C-alpha cells in the first residue's frame, strides 16, 4: 500500500526470474539510452521496456504510465531550461526586453529533444529492473557485485525498517490530524517537528530492541542470511 513500485516488485510475473539477467537487461537499456545519438534508439528502449513491463511482467499499463510521469516536472523544466538561452546565436524564437533578447536556440532545442528521450529511455530501463525485482533480490545482486558486506547489511536493515517506521509515522500523522495538528501552516510545521523528533527517539529505541533480539539469536558481528533459492537458472 505504501510504495507502488515495491508492491509490484513482489507481485509481478517476472519476480522469480534471475535478478542477474534482469540487472544486465536494465544496464544495457541504461547505457544504450545514455549513448544514443538519436531519439530513435532511446525512444525504442522506452517502448521495449514498457512492453516488457506490461506484457512480460503483467503490470497494468496505467501503472507504468503513472510512474513514467513521476520525474515529469524535473524533465519538463530541465529540458525547457536547456532549450532557452539568454542570447541565442541561432534563434528559433526570440523576444527583446530592453537590452536583453532571450529566446530558444536551434541547437538548444535539438539538445533538449535528445535529452528528453534519453532520460525517458533510461528511466524506463530502471523501472524494468525495480518493478520486476523484489528489493531483497536487488540487495543480493549488490552483494554479488562484491559490495562491502556492511553495505548490504545496512541495506537489509534500512529496507526493513523503512516500513516499520513508515507505519508508525502514518499512525502518528492520523492522530495528529484528528487533533487538528495540520489545521494551519504554523501548526503543520510544529506538528511535523514533534513527529520527526518522536520518530527519531523511537528509532533509537527500535535499534536497541533489535540489537537485543538479534543477540538472542546469536548475532555477534555479521548479519548472515541465506541467498534466495531459485530453480533451474544457470546464472542465478
Amino acid at each position, binding site marked *: 500500500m505504501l510504495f507502488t513500485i515495491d508492491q509490484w516488485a513482489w507481485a509481478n510475473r517476472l519476480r522469480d526470474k534471475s535478478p542477474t539477467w534482469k540487472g544486465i537487461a536494465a544496464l544495457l537499456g541504461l547505457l544504450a539510452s545514455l549513448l544514443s545519438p538519436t531519439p530513435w534508439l532511446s525512444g525504442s528502449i522506452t517502448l521495449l521496456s514498457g512492453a516488457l513491463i506490461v506484457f512480460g511482467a503483467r503490470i497494468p499499463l496505467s501503472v507504468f504510465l503513472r510512474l513514467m510521469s513521476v520525474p515529469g516536472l*524535473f524533465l519538463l523544466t530541465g529540458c525547457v531550461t536547456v532549450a532557452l538561452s539568454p542570447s541565442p546565436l541561432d534563434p528559433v524564437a526570440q523576444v527583446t526586453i530592453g537590452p536583453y533578447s532571450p529566446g530558444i536556440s536551434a541547437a538548444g532545442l535539438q539538445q533538449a529533444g535528445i535529452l528528453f528521450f534519453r532520460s525517458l529511455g*533510461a528511466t524506463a530501463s530502471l523501472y524494468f529492473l525495480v518493478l520486476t525485482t523484489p528489493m531483497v533480490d536487488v540487495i543480493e545482486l549488490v552483494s554479488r557485485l562484491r559490495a562491502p558486506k556492511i553495505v548490504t547489511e545496512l541495506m537489509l536493515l534500512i529496507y526493513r525498517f523503512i516500513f516499520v517506521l513508515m507505519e508508525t509515522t502514518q499512525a502518528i500523522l492520523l492522530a495528529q490530524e484528528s487533533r487538528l495538528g495540520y489545521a494551519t501552516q504554523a501548526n503543520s510545521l510544529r506538528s511535523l517537528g514533534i513527529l520527526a523528533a518522536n520518530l527519531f527517539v523511537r528509532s533509537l529505541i527500535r535499534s536497541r530492541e533489535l540489537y537485543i533480539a538479534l543477540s538472542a539469536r546469536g548475532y555477534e558481528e555479521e548479519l548472515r542470511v541465506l541467498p534466495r533459492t531459485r530453480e533451474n537458472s544457470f546464472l542465478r
Partner: protein
Amino acid sequence: MHIMEGYLPLSHAAAWTAASAPFVVHGLRAIQKTVRTNPEAKMLLGVAGAFSFVLSALKLPSVTGSSSHPTGTGLGAVLFGPTVMTVLGAIVLLFQALLLAHGGITTLGANVFSMGIVGPFAAYGVYRLGQRMNLSSNISIFAAAAIGDLATYVTTTVQLALAFPDTATGVVGSIVKFGSVFLVTQIPLALAEGLLTVVIFNALSKY
C-alpha cells in the same frame, strides 16, 4: 533536488561517481571500524538510515504553499556527523531511486555528491562555526540546515550547468539559467527546512 535517471551524459555521470567514491569509501571505513568495536552500531545506523528515508518522504509545509520534502541533511549531519551521513545518504538515495523513482542509478554519483557530501559537510561546518561563535543553538541549527540545503541546490545547479553549457554564453550562462529556475523555488524550501530542523531539535531536547 534529485537529478533524474538518464539526465546526465555518461561521462558526467562517471566523473561525479568518481568524485563521490573517496568520500563514501572513507565513510565506510569509519563505519566498519565503529561496528567492529561496537556491534550494536550496525542496528543504530540501519534504523537511522530508515529514519532519514522516512523523514524525506514527509511533506514539508513551505512558506510558498507549494509543498516539498525535507532533506534531513542538516539534521543528520549534526546528529551523526558528515562522514557517516555520506554513507547513509548514499544508501538512502539508492532506495529513493529504487522505491520512489526519485533520482536514478546513473545519476547516483552526482546526487550523492550534492546531497550526501556537499550538503552534510556544509551543514556541519556551519553548525560548528556557529558554536565557536557562541551563537544560540537555535540560530546555529537553523543556519546549518538552511545553508546545507542551499549548498546542495547550488551544487546541483553547477552539475547541470556543466553538463549543459549554454550554446552562446557557456557554463556561466547556464549556471544563471538553471540557478534562476531552481534557486528561486528552493530558497523558501531551505528556510522551511531550517525552521523544521529547529523545531525537531527543540522537541528532541525535551526527551
